[in-house]
């Protein structure tokens, strides 16, 4: 029988805009790294940023939770609105913002603490748990969402750094979701993982999309095709094409997109 459910899952639905980016520019000193980018990141959707090295995709991702604030020579201009609120407004506390807009990095970077404390750290500093029982519950829930609970539940006191690379990355994802973020930014989350750990993280990303808006930067075009519903192609600081992932990979509109995804010299 025709599987209508699968079909529906892959279909493009119009979702509410989570982050609205308008006329975005980023300079590193004199270098114009992001040029006039306009894009709407949708809620409950995985958006993939693809493009060659140095195209600006990571820079743009880092604008979404003000990670570029930590770079002295970086200047960010334009409007970035999370649920209609300007995130670069002076009244916005970047620490609070980053609890809402979580981030997972290329290299797994667990704290040199126990598995439990890695996950409990965020909820503790943001005061999300009233007591130990509350915190235990948050830690378990987060580790389950990170699809790593079954592997670590008997050794929560063991150091996070003692896990395998794939487990560490899932621990970092559990840590990122522990503060109940609304948006999860992932910068090359699988590039240091083997194919099995990659598949587990990809499966996890698909589950996370039920609750969050996920933005993933990846060099693997196949990964972008597998996990995302929307794909944005960056080239030389420009957002060249943004569209439904299926369309980008079967019939891209811009010849630069076609050259890049088919592996031609563009």
């Amino acid at each position: 029988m025709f599987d209508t459910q699968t079909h529906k899952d892959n279909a493009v639905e119009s979702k509410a805009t989570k982050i609205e980016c308008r006329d975005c520019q980023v300079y590193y000193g004199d270098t114009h790294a992001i040029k006039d980018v306009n894009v709407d990141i949708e809620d409950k959707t995985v958006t993939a940023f693809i493009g060659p090295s140095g195209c600006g995709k990571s820079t743009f991702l880092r604008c979404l939770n003000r990670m570029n604030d930590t770079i002295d020579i970086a200047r960010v201009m334009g409007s970035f609105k999370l649920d209609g609120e300007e995130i670069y407004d002076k009244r916005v506390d970047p620490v609070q913002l980053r609890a809402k807009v979580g981030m997972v990095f290329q290299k797994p970077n667990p704290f040199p603490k126990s598995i439990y404390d890695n996950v409990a750290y965020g909820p503790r500093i943001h005061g999300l748990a009233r007591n130990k029982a509350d915190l235990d519950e948050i830690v378990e829930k987060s580790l389950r969402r990170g699809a790593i609970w079954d592997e670590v539940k008997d050794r929560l006191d063991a150091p996070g750094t003692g896990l395998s690379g794939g487990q560490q990355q899932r621990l970092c994802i559990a840590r990122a979701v522990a503060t109940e973020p609304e948006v999860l930014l992932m910068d090359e989350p699988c590039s240091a993982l083997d194919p099995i750990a990659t598949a587990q993280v990809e499966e996890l990303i698909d589950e996370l999309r039920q609750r969050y808006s996920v933005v993933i930067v990846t060099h693997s075009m196949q990964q972008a095709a597998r996990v995302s519903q929307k794909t944005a192609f960056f080239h030389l600081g420009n957002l060249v094409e943004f569209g439904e992932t299926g369309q980008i990979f079967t019939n891209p509109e811009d010849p630069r997109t076609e050259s890049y995804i088919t592996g031609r010299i563009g």
Partner: protein
Amino acid sequence: MNTTEQHIASAFDRDLEAIQANIMKMGGLVEAAIMSSARSLETRDEELAQEVRAGDKAIDALEDLINEETARLIALRAPTAGDLRLVLSVLKVSGNLERIGDYSKNIAKRTGVLVQSPPVNDSAAALRRMAREVELMLKDALDAYIQRDAELAQDVINRDHEVDQMYNALFREFLTFMAEDPRNITSCMHLHFIAKNIERMGDHVTSIAEQVVYLVTGARPEEARPKADTTSVVTEG
């Protein structure tokens, strides 16, 4: 599509070129099979008919080869965008060509029977003209394929109309012959199947041309192709 640009992995280009070269080789064999089968019918040449029947094996073998190469390329290269559309079109076009080859073989088989009885009017010449038209359409469709020419492909799609009309005319003619003299029935039945075979070849050529439009533009041809085969609703007379 960017056909002028090379892949960074040059082996990918070589694989794609090899598959397309096999499609063109298959196309050449099929064009020859169409013309030879029609000529064997007109000139009542049993030997030529036998050659067409034997030659179908080579066409089938090429289809198998193309399917294998294509499966391998999908597995190893994960083609996307224009490359993906090319690979998909290769699979369909090779299937269409194989079917056209089968119809030619069937015409050659029926020719073996038809030469046993006297010719019916000049219908064999009319069938050869019809086959000639289909063969020209195929040639243009394959040219359009290799040159990525959607306009020429659309032209081929529009020309299928003429083949359908030739078939309609022959259908009525055979019906009349059979009504006039029951001794014509055996021959006319075979001739009618031959006409139908050629008409179906036209449909497969049209399908190839539609693949070209998809390959080049990423979209199916805008309008459904004109349907001019009206014989499915014909009653006697």
